[in-house]
């Protein structure tokens, strides 16, 4: 940036140097010329009202100005005051026209385009956010459903397990009860058989004792004594 300014200054100074002479000379020349012209214009104007009228005056004046431009061909145009009214007039007209066109037509038009784009982007963002919220809600609902299904499955599994174990327990108990009943019946039968057998043992012992006694001593011993002795012996051998 500094370099640009330095260059610009250099260019300006070059220009100023080149222009030095015309700048100094032109305004003075123009001034002198204006004085002459005003003096020239004033003289006919004074008499013009009396005699020749405005139109001839204007023509004279135009001719005088035309000559002036030719005579001072070396002047510096930007400082030529005779061009100022025209420049200002057209500048006012064109600048005003441009301002009207810009402020009424073009700038609202560009502004509307920018606003529409801005609105469109905002709308799209809003919609995207809406979709995002929807998808998040869907995800939450899915996770909830998943959790519920899992809980339900667990409940069903637990219930089934409980029911099955209860069933098997009942079966086992029934079976055990059955087996216990059969065992008890068998034990009863064994005991009855044993008792029966034991009752036969006493009769056999009495008979055997009587035979042995009669064989040994040649006479029969009274049955009552034998039975008594057998009972004593049985009682002695009775397992404790």
């Amino acid at each position: 940036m500094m370099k640009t300014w330095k260059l610009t200054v250099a260019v300006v100074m070059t220009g100023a140097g080149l222009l030095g002479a015309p700048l100094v000379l032109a305004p003075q020349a123009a001034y002198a010329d204006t004085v002459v012209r005003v003096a020239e214009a004033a003289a006919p104007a004074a008499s013009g009202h009396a005699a020749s009228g405005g139109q001839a005056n204007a023509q004279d004046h135009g001719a005088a100005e035309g000559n002036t431009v030719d005579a001072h061909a070396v002047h510096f145009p930007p400082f030529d005051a005779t061009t100022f009214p025209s420049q200002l007039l057209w500048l006012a007209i064109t600048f005003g026209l441009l301002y009207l066109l810009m402020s009424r037509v073009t700038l609202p038009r560009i502004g509307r385009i920018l606003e529409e784009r801005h609105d469109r982007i905002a709308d799209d963002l809003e919609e995207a956010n809406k979709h995002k919220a929807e998808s998040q809600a869907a995800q939450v609902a899915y996770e909830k459903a998943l959790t519920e299904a899992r809980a339900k499955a667990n409940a069903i599994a637990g219930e089934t397990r409980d029911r099955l174990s209860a069933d098997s327990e009942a079966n086992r108990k029934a079976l055990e009860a059955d087996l216990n009943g059969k065992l008890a019946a068998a034990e009863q039968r064994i005991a009855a058989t044993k008792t029966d057998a034991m009752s036969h043992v006493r009769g056999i012992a009495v008979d055997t004792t009587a035979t042995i006694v009669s064989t040994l001593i040649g006479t029969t011993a009274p049955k009552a004594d034998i039975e008594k002795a057998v009972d004593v012996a049985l009682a002695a051998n009775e397992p404790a």
Partner: protein
Amino acid sequence: MTVDPIHQFEIKRFVDLLNVSGVQFSFTNAAVFMFGIVAIVFLFLTYATRGRTLVPGRAQSVAEMSYEFIAKMVRDSAGSQGMVFFPFVFTLFTFVLVANVVGLIPYTFTVTAHLVVTAALALLVIGTVIVYGFFKHGTHFLHLFVPSGVPGFLLPFLVVIEVVSFLSRPISLSLRLFANMLAGHIALKVFAFFVVGLASAGVVGWFGATLPFFMIVALTALELLVAVLQAYVFAVLTSIYLNDAIHPGH
């Protein structure tokens, strides 16, 4: 061909329109170029935004970027209240920019190389500041010239300085643009005359003429930069000055 680097600034009277007591109004080449500037700016921006597309093309991007560029400039300098002047600053910027750039094309006329034009634009800016300042703030606008928090004995000097700096604004604003345009175009024309002068001096001159020719190429690039920069500077300073009309307190 005579060496006359200021011939390019000549105002040519095409049609003399009316003469009000010695003041001549004419249709001139300057008027042609002023209308040309208006046409270029308006037609380009209208053409650029013809599609009003959501995704802008190149021309529409240029139009939108210039819009947002000036809008940001005005908002940054003069605040959101300053946006009432956005069309004004935009018009100034585009007018000066197109005038400067069009003037770089050979054989064209540079509207902004005339002091009366730049002075009128600068006075328009300062006039807007003064009128809007008084219209909006009344006499409070004069606080612009009274810095706050200054010891009493310094105040008169500072007020004088502030007034002088305020009054010098239109002068610097108009002279800066005018001098840049004028000097740049004269420099270009002088180097162009060197090319012609050397080339007419025989075979050796042809080689010699390449030097100022390359100088012209470089100067044209520089002048393009200056043309854009000066339009930017004019618009930025306008925004800053308008800020005083909107917020006159220091």
